[in-house]
């Protein structure tokens, strides 16, 4: 298989970010030089401006704009911080370095634009994402959490010092971490037919041990709970660039269901970004109806669980009949289960019996 040169590949993205950063600098420079207070305008992230787009099948920002102006005494500090962030990111991209969110917070102190707390600096990073129309990973800022990948896929790195090197992602049976290197790598070769995203590391390891990658020609991704955005970005790339169907396997509770939904349709918090969702992703399970069908060990729903279920029922992303039915089943049986609950039938039951039934869903797709 040849690497498809789509617009989501690493180089194209890097060019776009560099241009956006430099034009932001130009704008502010010209304003100052002409004796005007500089200002920038970008889409508002207020709750009222987050709308669900049925065509894109994800949340997006509406048409409302906010203006941040250095002339306003209330805005000049965050405005300066935003510009420093752009300046700092520009250096990261040029030097092929990455930074964590935490590093950004500390680095600001060197420039006298220190943030009050981590939350404030994270908030401004999101503003910069909106302004540049790019995810923070594209200007080399990463969170600390990592998830992992395993399977028959060869990648070619683009990070400094590894340019052109390749790696077979099935070569380490504990799984490869998904970090800056993997997120920016090009896909070179695979014989996989499907991708299975799994909520927990335990089942991820079980699947590797039970050779799911060979038996079902699958690439396995451990999302480690609600997946970090770099992992959602990777899942989308696996679908877009390699045309692989994505199946998602989570705990049978409202939180697990929502992990599947966020992979499919994104989160309200990332409404300003496009390339993080995989609308065609399929929620394989564990469904509420599976708890009944497979007589799984279960716990009673807590009040928080039930409150969450009602929230999800009101969410436009859950209007689909199947999803809605499962939410109702949860509320009817008042129970939840974990993926590991299948172990009561033996450790390999989930791979031998449950998975083949569920994978029919991916084929029919």
């Amino acid at each position: 298989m040849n690497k498809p040169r789509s617009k989501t590949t690493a180089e194209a993205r890097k060019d776009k970010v560099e241009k956006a950063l430099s034009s932001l600098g130009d704008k502010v420079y010209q304003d100052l030089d002409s004796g005007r207070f500089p200002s920038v305008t970008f889409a508002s992230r207020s709750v009222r401006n987050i709308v669900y787009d049925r065509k894109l099948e994800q949340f997006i920002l509406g048409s409302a704009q906010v203006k941040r102006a250095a002339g306003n005494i209330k805005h000049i500090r965050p405005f300066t911080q935003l510009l420093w962030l752009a300046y700092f990111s520009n250096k990261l991209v040029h030097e092929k370095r990455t930074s964590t969110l935490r590093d950004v917070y500390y680095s600001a102190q060197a420039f006298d634009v220190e943030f009050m707390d981590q939350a404030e600096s994270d908030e401004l990073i999101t503003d910069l994402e909106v302004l540049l129309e790019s995810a923070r990973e594209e200007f080399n800022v990463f969170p600390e959490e990592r998830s992992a990948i395993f399977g028959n896929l060869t990648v070619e790195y683009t990070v400094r010092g590894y340019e052109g090197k390749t790696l077979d992602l099935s070569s380490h049976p504990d799984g490869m971490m998904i970090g800056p290197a993997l997120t920016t790598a090009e896909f070179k070769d695979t014989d996989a037919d499907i991708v299975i995203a799994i909520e927990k590391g335990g089942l991820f390891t079980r699947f590797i041990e039970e050779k799911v990658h060979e038996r079902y020609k699958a690439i396995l991704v451990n999302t480690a709970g609600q997946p970090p955005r770099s992992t959602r970005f990777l899942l989308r790339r696996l679908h877009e660039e390699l045309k692989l169907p994505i199946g998602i396997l989570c705990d049978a509770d409202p939180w697990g269901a929502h992990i599947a939904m966020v992979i499919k349709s994104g989160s309200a918090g990332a409404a300003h970004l496009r390339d993080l969702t995989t609308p065609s992703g399929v929620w394989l399970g564990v469904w509420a109806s599976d708890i009944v069908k497979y007589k799984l060990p279960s716990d009673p729903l807590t009040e928080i669980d039930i409150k969450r279920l009602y929230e999800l029922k009101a969410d436009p992303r859950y209007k689909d009949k199947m999803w809605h039915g499962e939410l109702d089943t949860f509320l009817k049986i008042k129970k939840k289960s974990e993926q590991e609950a299948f172990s009561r039938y033996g450790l390999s039951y989930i791979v031998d019996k449950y998975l083949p039934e569920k994978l029919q869903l991916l084929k029919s797709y």
Partner: protein
Amino acid sequence: MGVRELVENSLDAAELAGILPDVYVRIVANEASPENTEPRAYRLSVADNGPGVDPHQVPRAFGKVFYGSKYVLRQSRGMFGLGGTMAILYGQITTNKPVKITTSTDGKSRHVFEMLIDISENKPIIVRKDVEDAMGKTGTRVDLVMEGDFTRSAQKINDYFKQTALVGSYANLTFVDPIGRISTYERATEAMPPTPKETLPHPYGIDVEALKRMIKITDEKNMVNFMANKHFHRVGDTIAKKFLTFAGIDWRVAPEKLTNEQIVRIVDALQRFPDFLPPDASCLSPVGEQILQTGIIKELAPEFSTVVLRPPSSYSGFPFLVEVGLVYGGKVLEPGRKLFRFANRIPLLYDESSDVSFQVINEQIDWRRYHVPDEAPIAVITHIASTKIPYKTVGKEYIADRPEIEAEIKNAVRESLRRLSVFLSKKGSMEAVQRKMNIYGKYLPLLAKFSTELAGKKREPRYKQLLKDEEEAATEAQPEVTAEEGEKTDGEKIIEQTTIEDYR
């Protein structure tokens, strides 16, 4: 400990006689009490410069419980007119010592009585009686011994004097405690609150017992005269006749001939008859702006204070009025909101959180609307003057939330807050311009540096002129800037909140 009851009697006595009050209070441990533990016996002495008491009246006034039920209405401090006697009775029960009353009406001779109360017969027993030289001073002095726990009461007694001084800036108060510490609260003004007029009771406020007593003492021979002449407030011939028709009572019947059932019918009709005139407020005595302001400045030395006096109003036939003082900053107040409550010029010291004033201030006023932060050093003083204070319980330390009273307090507090808000906004404006220039001066050079690098330029943009222009504009536009900035008294913090909200 009885201190309050006696001090209030003394203040009432002097004020009613138009004398600027001097009140001296002393508590000493009674030498006859051998132990050192609390509670123990204390001697309480309260002396005033009032008009004195007619010596013939002394035994009845101080040696008999339930003496003198008043059937005229006048705002007064006293607790049902019983307060002083109850203190005396309490002293006798706990220590069996007689009370000593020394009083002079003419400044020439003074009469000394030592008395006990015969509780079963409810009559005074005079133990000793003397006449001495008054050395030119009128007034009354009460000395009694009672059991008490001073250690536990000390804080409340001190609060009582401090707060009494706040609304009684025309009085000299001296308090000597058992350890010998002297607290003096000196007179700071010669102004006195006007003596409230006595008025007849308003028909709305009459119950069955009251009506029966009136009937017993009246010399009127028919009901029209009884209603219209000297027993009821603002009732004339016309209204009296209209009322009797309404109540179904023959005009000509003699009051003493009324049956029990007719009396109940009259009382019932009094409540429902729509045409009585509203009560006249001349019987009320507010503290007044000058006296209250003087008290506030003397006791709290604030940065800002204001007093709002509301016009008289009424609830269930009783006239009342509300005064509010609002105090900000200065040397005495600590951060946070404090409330001082007064009813008929008596400080209320207990059960604050159940009081209507507390509820209005903490639940019905949106302090943020006036840009007063929660931790600002603030004191609110509320005074309710009425011929009948609607206490919620017999203990009488908090006032019920009658809608009429609540509304008056709310209006007064809001008005005083508007004044504070204007003061704070003016204070903030000068500081604001300076702060603004400092902020521009810090961030513009940074913007220049970052944009130069981002845009890949060689020289920095010319931003310094911008800084200079802005300074001139800001200084000229001060009034306008003031109005806008005054709303955000704590600058940076609020700026950040607004930002996050705008952009989330």
